[in-house]
C-alpha cells in the first residue's frame, strides 16, 4: 500500500451515477464541499451506457455527459474515481470513511490522454463497458466520453511487453503503482450506489447464460447506442441481422421462485423503448414483447406504450417459462398462449433480450448500521415524506440504492437527498 492521504468535506457521496452526480451538483452549488467517490474508472454510472431514455427518447449520453462534465469541473466537487469505499464509521463529529484508490498504472498528473499507449498495446480483451460485446486493449481509456480521460492498465491481462511505456510521450506508465489508502472525514454522507441487474442465470429455466443469442438488457442498450460495439444491431452467434426479436419481461422480477418478488419498475418501459429504437433501426424485423402486464406508471408513459403498439410492436401476454435453442442458435421460448383460451406453445426468435430486474449493488453498506428492506434496498424510516432518510443522522440515500426507479425519479430523489443533507449541515451541531 502506497501513501496515506486525508481529506475533509461536508458531504461524501458514494457512487457517481445520475443520483450521485445530481446530489453532488446540488450541494456544491449551495456552497458546500463534496467528495464524490466512484469505484469505476469513469463517473456516470449506468446511465452513460444507455442508448436513449424513455419516454422522451433523448440520447442518454447527450444528457449525461454535461452532468458528468459539470460535476467534474465543479469547484466544490472533488471526484475520486477508480476508488472504492471500504468502510464508513459514524463518529461524534460526523463520519470517517476509508477508501482504497486502485492503481491505474498511469501517472494521472502527467497523462495527456493522447491514447498512444492504447494504440500500441497488442493485447485485446473483453470490453466491460460494452458488457462483453466488444473488445478493448489491455491499456485503454474506458470509453469515448469517459471522465476522467485516463487509461487503465489491466494488471492481470497485461503481458508486460513495454510497448505502451515506449510510446507514451509523457513517460507516465508506472508498472509499479500500488493501491492507495485514503481517509475522508465528512459531516454527512449520501449513498448512491445504484443497482445491478438480476444475473442472466438467475432463473434456471432461462438457459443459465449459455445461449449465445439470449442477451441482457444492458447489452441491448449497447447494441442500440450511437457508439455501440458493432455500430448496428447484429446477433452475437453469426452476425446476422435479426429478423425477429423478442423481449422476455419480468425476467428476474416478480418471481418468488428466484427470490425477487417485487416489480423492478423500469423494465417494461425500457423494453418498450428498446423495441421502438429497434423498429427504427430494423424496420423489417418483427419485435415481440412477452409480458405479464405492462407497467407504464409515469407521466407520458402510457402514451409511450400506446405509441409502441401503434408502431406494430407485438405485445403478447405470457410469462416465458423456458428458453432453449436449436442447432442454428435460434432461440426457442415456451409460453402459454392465452389469446384464445390456453395453449402451451414453442415460439422461435433470432435474438432474445431478457428484461432483467434491478437488485441492490451491495449486500452491506460499509459497516453502517442502516436498515435494509427485505430485498436489500436501503429503507427510509419515513418512506412517504422523506424517502432520502436512512434512520442514521447525517446519512442519506439517493437513486436505486433505495429501490428500483427510473431516471426522473432518481434525479428527484437525489435532489431531495441533497436538500436533507444541506438542511442537516446547516442545523445540526457539527463542528
Amino acid at each position: 500500500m502506497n501513501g496515506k492521504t486525508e481529506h475533509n468535506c461536508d458531504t461524501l457521496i458514494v457512487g457517481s451515477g445520475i443520483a450521485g452526480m445530481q446530489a453532488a451538483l446540488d450541494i456544491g452549488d449551495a456552497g458546500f464541499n463534496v467528495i464524490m467517490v466512484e469505484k469505476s474508472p469513469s463517473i456516470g454510472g449506468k446511465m452513460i451506457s444507455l442508448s436513449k431514455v424513455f419516454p422522451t427518447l433523448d440520447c442518454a449520453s447527450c444528457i449525461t455527459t454535461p452532468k458528468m462534465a459539470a460535476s467534474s469541473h465543479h469547484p466544490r466537487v472533488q471526484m475520486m474515481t477508480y476508488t472504492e469505499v471500504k468502510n464508513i464509521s459514524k463518529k461524534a463529529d460526523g463520519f470517517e470513511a476509508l477508501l482504497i484508490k486502485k492503481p491505474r498504472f498511469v501517472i494521472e498528473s502527467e497523462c495527456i490522454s493522447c491514447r498512444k499507449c492504447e494504440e500500441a498495446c497488442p493485447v485485446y480483451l473483453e470490453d466491460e463497458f460494452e458488457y462483453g460485446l466488444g473488445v478493448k486493449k489491455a491499456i485503454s481509456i474506458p470509453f469515448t466520453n469517459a471522465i476522467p480521460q485516463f487509461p487503465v492498465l489491466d494488471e492481470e491481462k497485461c503481458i508486460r511487453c513495454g510497448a505502451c511505456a515506449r510510446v507514451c510521450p509523457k513517460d507516465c506508465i508506472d508498472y509499479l503503482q500500488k493501491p492507495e489508502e485514503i481517509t475522508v472525514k465528512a459531516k454527512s454522507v449520501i449513498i448512491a450506489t445504484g443497482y445491478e441487474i438480476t444475473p442472466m442465470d438467475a432463473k434456471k429455466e432461462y438457459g443459465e447464460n449459455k445461449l449465445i443469442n439470449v442477451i441482457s438488457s444492458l447489452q441491448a442498450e449497447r447494441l442500440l447506442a450511437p457508439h455501440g460495439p458493432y455500430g448496428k444491431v447484429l446477433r452475437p452467434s453469426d452476425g446476422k441481422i435479426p429478423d425477429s426479436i423478442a423481449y422476455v419481461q419480468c425476467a428476474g422480477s416478480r418471481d418468488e421462485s428466484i427470490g425477487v418478488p417485487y416489480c423492478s419498475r423500469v423494465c417494461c418501459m425500457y423494453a418498450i423503448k428498446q423495441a421502438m429504437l429497434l423498429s427504427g433501426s430494423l424496420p423489417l424485423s418483427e419485435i415481440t414483447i412477452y409480458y405479464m402486464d405492462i407497467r407504464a406508471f409515469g407521466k407520458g408513459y402510457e402514451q409511450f406504450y400506446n405509441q409502441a403498439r401503434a408502431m406494430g410492436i407485438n405485445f403478447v401476454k405470457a410469462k416465458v417459462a423456458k428458453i432453449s435453442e436449436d442447432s442454428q442458435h435460434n432461440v426457442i421460448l415456451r409460453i402459454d398462449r392465452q389469446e384464445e383460451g390456453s395453449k402451451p406453445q414453442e415460439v422461435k426468435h433470432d435474438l432474445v433480450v431478457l428484461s432483467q430486474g434491478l437488485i441492490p449493488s451491495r449486500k452491506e453498506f460499509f459497516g453502517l448500521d442502516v436498515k435494509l428492506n427485505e430485498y436489500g434496498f436501503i429503507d427510509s424510516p419515513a418512506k412517504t415524506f422523506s424517502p432520502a432518510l436512512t434512520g442514521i443522522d447525517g446519512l442519506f440515500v439517493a437513486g436505486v440504492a433505495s429501490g428500483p426507479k427510473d431516471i426522473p425519479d432518481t434525479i428527484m430523489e437525489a435532489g431531495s437527498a441533497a436538500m436533507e443533507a444541506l438542511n442537516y449541515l446547516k442545523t445540526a451541531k457539527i463542528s
Partner: protein
Amino acid sequence: MKVNTKFIKEVKKYGAFDISACFNCGNCTAVCPLSAEDVSFPRKMIRYAQVGAEKEIEASLEPWMCYYCGECSDTCPRQAYPGEFMMSLRRYLISKYDVTGISAFFYKFPWVQNLLTIAIFAVSLIFFLSYTGDFQELAEKIEMAFPAYVTLAIIAYVFMFYKKTIMDKAGKMLISFDFKNIWETLIHGLTQKNFSSCSDTDWTRWIAHLLVMSGYTLTLIISNLHLLEPLRIHYGLFDISTLLVFYATFAILAGGFVMMFRRVVKQVQSSSFSHSTDWLFVVMLFLIGLSTFATHTANMALGPDSDTVSILYKFNIAVEMAWIVIVVPFTKWIHIFFRPMAIYLRNLKKEKQLV
C-alpha cells in the same frame, strides 16, 4: 355463468395450495411437460377454479393428465403451488364422481374414515376369531363378494366420469373402437409411461409408483378372485400363487417405503403435501401386503392345519374387509383407473372432434 368465489375454499379442503395468489401468467402451463394444446393445464384449471366454474372442472380430463412432477410448483412466480392444486382437483373430482357422496364426506372428515376402517377391522377380527364353522368357506364367500362390490364401485365412478366429460357435452353416448386408442389406453394403464415425460424424469418415483400400483392391483386380484386358500392347501415355494404373493408383497413394501420415505423427508415437491386419506391408504396397503405374506409363509412352513396360520389368515381377511369396503372405493387411489380412462376419453374427443 355466475362467478362463485367460494369454490376455491371448497377445493382447499382437498389439499394445500394458494391459487388465490396466482396472477395468471401461464408459466405453469408452459413449463409443464405434459400439458398440450388440446389438454392445457394447470392455468386453465386454476382460472376455472378462481371463477368457480364447477361444471367445466367436472367436465375436464386435464387433472388426470397431470402426473405431479411438481415442475410448475417449483417455477411458479407466485408460489401458488399449481401442482398441488392439480392433485387436490383429482381428490375433489373423485368425490364428485362418487354417486354415494361418501368420498366427499371422508375427505372432509378423514377421522370418520379412519375410525370406520378400524371399527370394521376390529369387528371382523373379533367375529372371525370367535367363528367356529369352516373359516375357509366363510372367507371364500367374503372374497367372492368383493369383486361384485368393487366392480360396482368402479363402474359407478367410470360411468360418472364418462357422463360428465363426454355425455353431458356431446348430448349422447360416444364410443371409440379405434384399436390404436384402446392400445394406448392399455399401455398407459400398465406402464404409467407419461411419468417419463417430466423433464428431470424422476425415475425413482416412477419405479416406486409402478411397483406400488402393480402390487396394489395384484393384491386386489388375489383377494377378489379368492386365489388363496391357506387353510385348505399346503403351498410350496414354487407355486404360482406363492410367486404372486411374494411379488405383490415385495412391490408394495419396496415401492411403499420409497414413497413414504419421500413423504416424510419431504425432499420433493410432489411428495411435500399429503392428505391424511393418502396415509390411510398406504398404511392399509402395507398391512394387507404383510398379512398376506405372513399367512402365506406360515402356511408353507406349518401347513394348512396350523393354528398360527388360521389366526394370521383371520387377521388377513379382517384387514381386507376394512380395506376393500372403506378404503379402495373412497380414496384418490381409485385414480389408477381414471388415468388410462382419461387417455381413452381424450382420444375419443379428438376422434369425434368434441371440443
